[in-house]
């Protein structure tokens, strides 16, 4: 009797165990299934990203290997994915034909002088908008932001008229030519906006403390605010330099064919303007490498600053 009871009990518990393990199996299966689905979707995501990544990287890769190929190899019916003979002479040829020294000097001169001017005007204006109370502050600021909507082409036309009348476009006036490429770019509303946001984050207590210490507004700006805003100022500096490196339209109008005052992009386009000459591809791609690599180096070293500025860009397309 007791034994029977025991058996029954045992049977009962085993039933329970069976039932339990049954439901356990089904949830485990479900989990496994969703895990599989998760892995499958991850695989697809990675496949997609790798495919897109290859499309993004490929032009860079093709630029570099073509810059090292011989003309003979470029003109094979089947293209090769790695140069059979590495021809460094493409680079010497590119440097020589570009007249790289002159282009670099011009671009750095224009880039650095226009950047320094911009930094000064931007610091002053951002300080006024962020820290000083004056009548019409919000109105003026809104007006400036609104003017960013106007297409730059409208200004280019009249600015070209203005600098022409000043004699800054005449080919004998080298100083004027450079002034025309620098002075109109001494102001940027977007960077004023960027720096003003940064200045506004600096706590008022610092300002009051500086006042107690008997510091003037001027000293406070240069001894406290500017050092604190260094990251943003670095961003402006880098983006502005990249802007000079990439500018084509305006210097092209100003130089109107005078190679001595070309900036790097004008020099690149003008040197390799002949349409389709495969013999030239090696040197041409070497020249594009020479123009592209400094930008990529800037990106590698100042990645944080560049992405910060670009991420907050308002009008830049």
């Amino acid at each position, binding site marked *: 009797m007791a034994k029977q009871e025991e058996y029954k009990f045992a049977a009962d518990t085993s039933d329970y165990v069976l039932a339990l393990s049954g439901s356990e199996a089904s949830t485990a299966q479900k989990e496994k299934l969703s895990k599989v689905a998760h892995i499958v*979707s*991850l695989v697809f995501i990675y496949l*997609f990203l790798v495919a897109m*990544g290859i499309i*993004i990287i*490929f032009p*860079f890769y*093709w*630029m570099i290997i073509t810059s090292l190929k011989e003309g003979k190899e470029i003109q094979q*019916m*089947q*293209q090769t994915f790695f140069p059979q003979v590495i021809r460094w002479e493409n680079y010497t040829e590119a440097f020589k034909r570009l007249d790289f020294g002159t282009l670099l000097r011009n671009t750095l001169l224009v880039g650095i002088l226009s950047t320094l001017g911009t930094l000064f*005007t931007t610091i*002053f*204006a951002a*300080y*006024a908008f962020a820290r*000083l*109370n*004056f*009548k019409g*502050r919000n109105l*003026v600021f809104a007006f*400036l932001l609104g*003017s960013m909507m*106007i*297409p730059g082409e*409208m*200004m*280019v*036309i009249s*600015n070209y*008229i*203005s600098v*022409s*009348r000043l004699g800054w476009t005449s080919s004998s006036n080298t100083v004027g030519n450079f002034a025309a490429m620098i002075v*109109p770019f001494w*102001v940027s509303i977007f960077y004023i906006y960027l720096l003003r946001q940064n200045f506004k984050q600096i706590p008022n207590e610092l300002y009051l403390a500086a006042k107690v210490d008997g510091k003037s507004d001027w000293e406070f700006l240069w001894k406290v605010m500017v050092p604190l805003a260094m990251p943003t100022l670095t961003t402006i500096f880098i983006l502005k330099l990249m802007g000079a490196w*990439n500018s084509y*339209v305006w210097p092209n*109008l100003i130089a*109107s064919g005078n190679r001595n005052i070309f900036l790097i992009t004008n020099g690149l*386009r003008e040197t*390799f*303007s002949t*349409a*389709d000459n*495969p013999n030239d591809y090696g040197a041409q*791609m070497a020249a*594009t490498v020479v*123009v*592209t690599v400094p*930008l*990529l180096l*800037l990106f590698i070293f100042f*990645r944080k600053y*560049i*992405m910060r500025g670009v*991420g907050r860009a308002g*009008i830049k397309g």
Partner: protein
Amino acid sequence: MESKNNWKAWLYLAPVLILLAVFTFYPIINTVYVSFLKDYNYMRGTHSGFTFENYVAVLTPYSELGGAMFNDVMKTALPNTLLITIITVPLSIIISMLIALGLNSIKVLKKLFQTVFFMPYVTNAIAIGMVFSVIFSTDYGIFNNLIGAQHLSWIYRTGQSDPVNYWRALFAICFYIVWHSLPYKILIFLGGLQNIDAQYYDAAKIDSAPKWKTALRITVPLLSPQILYMMITSFIGSFKEYNSVIGLFGAKGGAFDANTGPSSMQTMVFFIYDQVAKNNVHYASAASLFLLVIIMIFTLVQNQVSKKRVHY
């Protein structure tokens, strides 16, 4: 204190305001003014009265009615610009959103992918345009190699090839523009994705909604402010396309088979700068005002649409 700060503030603002007055505000007004001048000589500043002729020359679709610039604008620049816009804006937004969604759902190698996808942003549009023109080269281009074609012309005509078919040239430039415009959009979308509250996803998980459904029903609507912003800015950007044309097709904007479409890839902005270089600043001014009006109309329309569709 108040009055003292007043003049001080204007002193701090003076450099910016003077420069803006000379190089931004005056030019805007002057460009409008010049666009209505007859026989304007920009060096001497002389003209013979006011006229609408510049607008007629630039905008009339019939050369018989005084459309002197008919071939350059109505037959070339405007169709090119519109086609580039219609093709590249939606395409680049969709692709960049897919990439951003992908990047947002992975952890391993995320940084590496982000860096790779940002690379096209830090390049020189003209230098990379030249690279694309080598890739699409007629006789020895890797693109022809990959699709198994021979002597198919995309950018330039060479000895053994047919003249460039317009639609192939359009494909090449759109490919390049989309490639070049992805990084910025990915960056903005990733920023938007990171700001989406995790609560929404937890709720979707409890409802055991499939991943694609979560993306379509939750992520995309919550990204709508970024999508609208991208639509407006990339629309304006693609209406101002210029450097990509110079990079890919050279300083003349290419030469295509006129039987297949416009005979070059010159865009509206290309036309404007070309006219400035040719000293026809009155035509350039009229065209730039036309550009301004189009940009404003589209921005307004998109703003109206967004009031109904965007979830903030």
